[in-house]
C-alpha cells in the first residue's frame, strides 16, 4: 500500500469500478451468481481499498469525481501558467527601483521560498493539484532568477543555464509527478544538447536552431531514456520522453525536407531535401511499426501524424499548383481513407500476433 503511487491507486480504483459494473451485468443476465456472503466479502474488500486510497491519494471514486478531476487539472494548469506569468510581470514591474543587492536577494528568496513551499504543499495536498501549481511557479521563479542575474550583471549568455533549469524541472517533475514540468525539463535538455552539438562545428551556441541536424543526438538520447531508466511509478513519463524524442527527430527532418540549405551537408539543396523526405517517410513508417510492435500508442500516433504530414507536404509540392483545388483535396481525403485501411489491417495483424504470443 505504502509503495503504491497515486496513479497506481487511481488505476486500481478504476478497475474496481469496471469490475462492479460487469459483475452487476453478469448477475442480471444470470451468468454468474455470487452468494450473499461472497458479495459482501468482495464489496467490503473493495470499499476498504477505495477508502484507503481516497484517504491517502484523494483519488476519484466515480465517474462524476473523475470529470471534476479533469476540470481541476485544466484549472490547475491554467492557474499555474497565469501565476508563473504573474511572477515574471511582478518582478519586471518593480525590479528597476531596487539596488542590485536587493534585486539578487529578492530573486534568490523567491526561488528558495517557492521551492520550499512546493515541497511543504506536497506533504499536505493529497490531490496533487496545488502541488503542481506551486511546482510550476517554483520553476518560473528559478528561470526568472537566472535570466535576471544575467540581465542585472550583463553576463555573457551561456547554454549552461539550460542545464540548471532542466535539473530543477526534472527534480520537481519526478517528485511532484508532474508531466508538464517533465516536458519543460526535456525542452531545456533538447536545447542544451543541440547547442553543444552545434558548438562542435564552431558556431555560436545560440544559433543551434539554424542547423536542424543539431537536434538528432538529443532525439536519440531522449527516445532511449525509458529503455535504460524504468519509469513504472511515473505514469506517462516514458511516453513523454518517447514523444519528445520523436518530435526532436521528425520536426528537424520536416524542416530539412523543405529547406535543404539549412543542412550541414555540402550537397545540392534539392538532393538534401530528397534525402530527408525519404528519411522522414522511412522514419515515420518505422515509428508506426515500432509503436504497434512494442505497444507504444504514443509512438504509433506520432509516427502516423508525421507520415501524413510528410505525405501531404509532398502532395502540396507536386499538385497544389497544377490540380484544381477540389481534386487536390479529394486526393488528400482518399489518401486518408487508404491510410485508415492500412492501419486497420495493421491492427488486425497486431491482434493476431498478440494472440499468437500469448502463453
Amino acid at each position, binding site marked *: 500500500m505504502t509503495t503504491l503511487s497515486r496513479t497506481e491507486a487511481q488505476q486500481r480504483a478504476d478497475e474496481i469500478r469496471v469490475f462492479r459494473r460487469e459483475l452487476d451485468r453478469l448477475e442480471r443476465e444470470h451468468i454468474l451468481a455470487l452468494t450473499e456472503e461472497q458479495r459482501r466479502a468482495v464489496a467490503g474488500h473493495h470499499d476498504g481499498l477505495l477508502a484507503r486510497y481516497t484517504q491517502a491519494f484523494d483519488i476519484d471514486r466515480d465517474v462524476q469525481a473523475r470529470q471534476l478531476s479533469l476540470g481541476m487539472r485544466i484549472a490547475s494548469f491554467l492557474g499555474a501558467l497565469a501565476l508563473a506569468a504573474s511572477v515574471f510581470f511582478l518582478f519586471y514591474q518593480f525590479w528597476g527601483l531596487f539596488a542590485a543587492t536587493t534585486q539578487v536577494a529578492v530573486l534568490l528568496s523567491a526561488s528558495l521560498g517557492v521551492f520550499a513551499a512546493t515541497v511543504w504543499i506536497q506533504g499536505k495536498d493529497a490531490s496533487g493539484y496545488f502541488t503542481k501549481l506551486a511546482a510550476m511557479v517554483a520553476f518560473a521563479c528559478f528561470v526568472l532568477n537566472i535570466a535576471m*542575474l544575467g540581465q542585472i550583471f*550583463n*553576463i*555573457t549568455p551561456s547554454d549552461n543555464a539550460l542545464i540548471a533549469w532542466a535539473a530543477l524541472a526534472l*527534480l520537481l517533475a519526478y*517528485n511532484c509527478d508532474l508531466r508538464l514540468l517533465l516536458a519543460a525539463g526535456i525542452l531545456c535538455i533538447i536545447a542544451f544538447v543541440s547547442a553543444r552539438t552545434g558548438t562542435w562545428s564552431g558556431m555560436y551556441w545560440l544559433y543551434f536552431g539554424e542547423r536542424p541536424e543539431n537536434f538528432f543526438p538529443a532525439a536519440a538520447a531522449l527516445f532511449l531514456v525509458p529503455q535504460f531508466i524504468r519509469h513504472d511509478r511515473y505514469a506517462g513519463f516514458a511516453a513523454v520522453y518517447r514523444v519528445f524524442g520523436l518530435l526532436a527527430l521528425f520536426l528537424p527532418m520536416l524542416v530539412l525536407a523543405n529547406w535543404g540549405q539549412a543542412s550541414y551537408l*555540402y550537397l545540392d539543396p534539392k538532393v538534401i531535401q530528397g534525402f530527408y523526405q525519404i528519411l522522414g517517410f522511412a522514419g515515420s513508417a518505422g515509428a508506426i511499426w515500432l509503436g504497434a510492435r512494442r505497444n507504444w500508442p504514443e509512438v504509433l500516433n506520432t509516427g502516423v501524424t508525421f507520415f501524413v504530414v510528410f505525405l501531404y507536404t509532398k502532395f502540396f509540392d507536386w499538385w497544389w499548383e497544377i490540380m484544381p483545388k477540389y481534386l487536390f483535396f479529394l486526393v488528400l481525403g482518399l489518401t486518408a481513407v487508404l491510410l485508415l485501411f492500412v492501419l486497420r489491417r495493421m491492427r488486425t495483424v497486431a491482434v493476431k500476433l498478440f494472440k499468437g504470443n500469448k502463453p
Partner: protein
Amino acid sequence: MIAWSRRRTLVAGIGLILAVNAVALAGVAYNRSGDPDSVLRLTQRELRPPYGWRSSAENSGVALTLHWRAPVEESADSRGWVSFGGGGSPAWLDKAKLASLGFETSPPKAAADGGRYYEKQLAREVLLVLELDGPAYRQSLERARQNAARAEASQAANAGNKDIERQAKLAKERATSEEREYTRLFAVDAGLDIGALRARYPDRARYAIVRGLVRPQLTSHDKEQRLSGYVSGLSVDQINLPVAFRQVVGYALQDNRAGRNNMPAPYEAEVAFGKRLEPWITAVSGKAGSQ
C-alpha cells in the same frame, strides 16, 4: 526510478538553487575583481537608452544599448553609407583575418559551389576590439567633411539643380551628425587571443576588448566575388543601468523631449570591462550644455 523523500527533495532543490546562484555570482565577482581590462568613458552617442523608456509601465528596469560601428570602405563612405550596431563588414575583416579566426576560407574540392560553402559557416564568437574616438572615428569624420565640401562645391557649380542641392544638404547633415551624434565607437580588429590583442592595443581607456559574433560572407565587387567577414553583433550589447544612475539619464531624456534633435541631452558614463570582458557601468554624470 525511486522517489525521493520530501526532505531529500528539499535539500537537493535548495542545494541546486544556491549552487547555481553561487556560480553565477562568483563569475560576476571574478569579472569585477582587480583592475578592469578596460574602462571607456562613453557618452549618449555610444550608450543609448531604449526607445519609449519612460512610457513602459510594465518594466521598470533600464538597459542602455552599446552603439558601435564597423569602419566602412572609402567607396561606401562616399555614398553616405553608415553602419550601426546592427552589423557591418569592415575592410580589415578579410580572408586572412577570417582564417585566423578559425573559419574555413578555402572550400574543399567536393564543394562545387563556394558560395554555399561559406554561407554554411555560421557566426562564431570571437574577441572584438572596440576603439573609442580613435583613428577610425577621425577618418570617418574627415570623410564626411570632405564629402560635404565636395557636395557644396558641386551645388555651387550646378546652381538650380534640385538633385544636387538635396545631396549637398544630406552630406552636410551627415557631417554634422558625424560630429555630434553618431557613435565614436568602432570595431577595429578581431582575434582569439586576448593577450595578443591587448599587446597590439595597450591603451585601456581607448580600446575595449569584448566578445562579438563574426561570420563569413561573399560580396560582389565589380562583378568579382570576394570573401569577407561580417560583424553581426556583440555578445553583450545591453548594459544594465543601476538605479543609482537612473536619475541622470532620466533627466537627459526629459531634456530630450523638449530638445531640438533626436539625441538625448549629454551624459557621460564610465563603463568598465572586467576579466571576463563583461561590462558594467561604474559612474554616470550629466554634461548639461557641453554638447
